C-alpha cells in the first residue's frame, strides 16, 4: 500500500458516514461509479489487517484499531442494504484478523455476528 495510515482511516471513516446517503440514491448513481464504490468498500474491508499491522509498527495500533472498529460497526449496521446493493456478504464486513492481544490483555469474547462492534473493538 502506498497510502498513509491517515489517508486510509480518514477515508474509511468518511465512507461509513457517507454510505447511508449513497445507498439511499443507489439506483440513480451511474453504473461505473457503483462498481467503483463496491470495489473500494471491499478493498477497505480487506485491507484492515494490513493496516492494523502498519499501525502497530507506527505505534498507532490502539488508535487505528478503535477507529476501524467504530467504522466497521457503522458499516455492519447497513449490512442488509449493502448485500442488496453491492452483493457484499456480512462475512466480508466482520471477517478481520487482528494482532494477538498482549499477554496481560483482557479476554473479550463475542458470541455472534451481532457482536461485531464488540469483536472489532477487541482489536
Amino acid at each position, binding site marked *: 500500500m502506498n497510502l498513509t495510515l491517515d489517508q486510509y482511516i480518514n477515508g474509511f471513516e468518511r465512507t461509513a458516514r457517507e454510505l447511508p446517503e449513497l445507498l439511499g440514491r443507489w439506483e440513480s448513481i451511474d*453504473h461505473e461509479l457503483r462498481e467503483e464504490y463496491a470495489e473500494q468498500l471491499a478493498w477497505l474491508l480487506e485491507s484492515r489487517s494490513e493496516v492494523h499491522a502498519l499501525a502497530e509498527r507506527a505505534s498507532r495500533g490502539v488508535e487505528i484499531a478503535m477507529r476501524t472498529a467504530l467504522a466497521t460497526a457503522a458499516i455492519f449496521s447497513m449490512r442488509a442494504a449493502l448485500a442488496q446493493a453491492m452483493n457484499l456478504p456480512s462475512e466480508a464486513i466482520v471477517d478481520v484478523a487482528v494482532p494477538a492481544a498482549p499477554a496481560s490483555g483482557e479476554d473479550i469474547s463475542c458470541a455472534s455476528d451481532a457482536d461485531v462492534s464488540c469483536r472489532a473493538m477487541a482489536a
Partner: protein
Amino acid sequence: MVKPAAKLRALADSSTEPLAPFSAAELRKHIASEQCADESRPLAEWQAVGPDFVGRYHPSRPTEALSLTTELTSAEWHAVKHTGQGEWIEGTTTEEYLADIRASVLHASSVLDVGREANGRRPMRSGVRTELAAARTVLKKTAVIPDGHMFTVYDPERRRILTGFPLHATRALAKVSKWTNHRSFQ
C-alpha cells in the same frame, strides 16, 4: 466482414456464438488498441467510498497535488487508485499504468473472457486475465504478486477499456465465472 468489437458483443450475448473468424489473440489485440473510458469527474465523486487520495500526485501532471475538486478521467482515476493501493509502484503515471495494461492484454499467456456481468443491468463485458509472473518482463510498473493475474475489463458496447488491476488468480477466475454466457478463450 464482422468487426472485432461486434464479435465481442455477439460472444457476450450468446454462449453458442463461434469465435471464428477471429482468434482470441486477434480479439485481445483489438482490446489493447482501444481507448479508456474518458468520463471526467471530480476526485470527491470518485472517492466517495474508499481511502482519501487528497494530496497525492496527479498521475498525468505529477507535480500537481490532488484536491477534492481535481477533475480526473476514468484512466487517471484508476491510475491514482491502483497506485495508492500499492498495485503499481509509487510514481506511476497514467501513461505507464495504461502501458502495462495494454502489454498484459497482448501477452501470449493471456486468456480472453466474454459474457455479461451478473447484476441487474447485466452490461456486456470482455475480460483478459494475464499471469503476472509470465508477463513480468513486459510490465514496467506493476507490482507482481504471487499467483497474481492482471485482470483487464473491456466494455464492447462502449468500446472502452474500463480498468485493469492485479489480483489473485482464483479471485480473477471467480469474478468472470459469475458472468452470464461466460466462456474463456486462449
